[in-house]
């Protein structure tokens, strides 16, 4: 079983990437579990054809965690991809990080964490220990950073690389960086820029996903591109991403950039 996690700046396209990746891997005949770890609970929505599935934390809130079965939290979407949404508290109250921990504990107890590949789709930044949960021992061993060529997005990716470097120092930790995925915003020289960033943090660009209108149109139809336009170039890109990740043996402990290194990197890369 391969467990991977996607991290990156909020709004960068992690959920779109994750859902298409899961759909593509399912097309190869694999049993896929995708877990959305974000209180916004919209990670698996396109796999579920626009349906909002009940979140684990909603169920815990309503019933307590004693009376929940696997069938209450795991829903089958496109190509049989099994979908889970952690959910979270109302924005602005409580502790969403603790919610992620509670979700993982419940999924463990229900013995739900199985399949050929588990894809964890985690919210924008590793704001606290709870959101680093997927990186802990026994969960994702490979982290993929999703970023565009925009500097704010690279800053966020660098910050997450810090979390990976920090957690990988723990005893028995198996958390490593699998690679960097460039989800393009159509910036000039974007692919080279992200590839260079990946190299500098001791990793590599594993896929370049060009910006495509197809994605938006598919999402308007509440589907992944892989389902809506299976013959499209964009679908082929996600299929290639799936193959690259599934076959990936080259992982690394990242060496995140210091702030001044990041700033000089920004100056080198952007034509002022």
């Amino acid at each position, binding site marked *: 079983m391969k467990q991977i996690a996607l991290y990156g700046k909020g709004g960068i396209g992690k959920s779109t990437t994750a859902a298409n990746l899961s759909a593509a891997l399912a097309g190869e005949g694999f049993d896929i579990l995708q877990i959305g770890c974000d209180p916004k609970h919209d990670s698996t929505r396109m796999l579920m054809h626009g349906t909002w599935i009940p979140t684990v*934390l909603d169920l*815990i*809130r309503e019933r*307590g965690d004693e009376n929940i079965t696997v069938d209450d939290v795991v829903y089958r979407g496109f190509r049989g991809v099994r979908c889970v949404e952690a959910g*979270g*508290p*109302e924005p602005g*109250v*409580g*502790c*969403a990080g*603790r*919610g992620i921990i*509670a979700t993982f504990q419940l999924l463990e107890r229900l013995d739900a964490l199985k399949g050929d590949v588990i894809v964890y789709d985690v919210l924008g930044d590793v704001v606290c220990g709870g959101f680093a949960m997927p990186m802990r021992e026994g969960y994702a061993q490979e982290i993929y950073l999703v970023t565009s060529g925009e500097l704010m997005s690279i800053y966020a990716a660098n910050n997450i690389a810090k979390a990976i470097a920090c957690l990988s120092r723990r005893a028995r930790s198996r958390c490593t960086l699998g690679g960097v995925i460039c989800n393009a915003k159509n910036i000039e020289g974007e692919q080279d820029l992200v590839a260079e960033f990946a190299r500098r943090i001791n990793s590599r660009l594993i896929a370049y996903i060009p910006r495509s209108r197809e994605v938006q149109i598919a999402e308007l139809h509440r589907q992944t591109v892989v389902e809506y336009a299976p013959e499209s170039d964009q679908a082929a890109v996600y299929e290639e991403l799936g193959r690259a990740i599934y076959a990936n043996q080259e992982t690394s402990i990242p060496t995140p950039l210091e702030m001044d290194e990041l700033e000089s990197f920004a100056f080198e890369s952007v034509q002022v």
Partner: protein
Amino acid sequence: MNSNPSPLNPSRFEGCTLTGALSVLTEVRDAICIIHGPAGCAHHNFSLLHATLLSNDRFEVPRLLSTHLTENDIIFGGEDALETTIVRALSLSPAPASIFVLSTCIVETIGDDTEAVCAKHRGVPVIPVPTAGFLGGVFETGIRNALSSVASLARPRAEPTLSANLVGEKNLEYGADENAAEIARLLGRLGIGINLRFVRGISTRDLERLGSAALNILREPALQPIGEDLRRRFGTPYIPSFPAGLSGTCRFLEEVGQICGIDASAAVEEERAYQKAMLEGFADMAGSRVCFQTAHPMLGADPEAETVCTECAHALNLTVAPDGVPVPFPYPAPVGTAGLRRMLHRWRLLIRR
């Protein structure tokens, strides 16, 4: 985590902010204290307070409620649990005249807005008291936070009467009432009464008159921030500590007289004579050899204790020498002349043994 197991490690006895605050607030006898946190925070404090009340021959049960937070409340926020518990407190019989809401480490971590829940109008005052220990507080911080919060129940400012407040009595110490009685006796020499014991054995309504004393007498100098706070709010001057020692007690009378505009010289003379008579009761100890020692390695030295002991030894013609009978420094320093008498009784037992 502090893993230093030494008995000298101060973190072992600095205690919890919440406990300090509860030692004050449970002495507002018609109030209910709500501990906003997991059940354990209430349990330990309840046991301690109940045991202390029993050992002081008081058979009431401290009125504590816990909001009893569980993991779900931590994830989704504990404000609803607090609201429910306040409503429950109001429905209890006898109805509380005031409610104190004490925060704990966990609710401050998840960011519950305790003050906002308390601000709702409910007919009785609901006072939030910040008591999360991880914010840097210890037992004493809790006492100060509680005194400061509870002071908000006083009437704004009143014409002072010739009376004094006792501020921050140590409610968990055995001699609390004896010490208060000693202050009352000393003030009596100057014709000054006690306005309010702030806070011990009082009701919510009693708190209204906090601002009408001519003088605040703090239990110990650590309470000076509260003394300053009360001076700002009500214009009441303060004396930073209960008196200790023979001359310290006389100085206390002079200081009180000065602040209240009373000539204390007669009172001081009377007290000196009283002390002399008291010392004569211990004349049989004259000539004995004693050696003062720290009461316990875990207790820091009370700086006044040494002065107080040396002064008494001198007055009784004792010899202080390394080969003398070991006599522990009192902790805390004895209050007034009556405190000295109790201390000397213990000395006599040690010397005769």
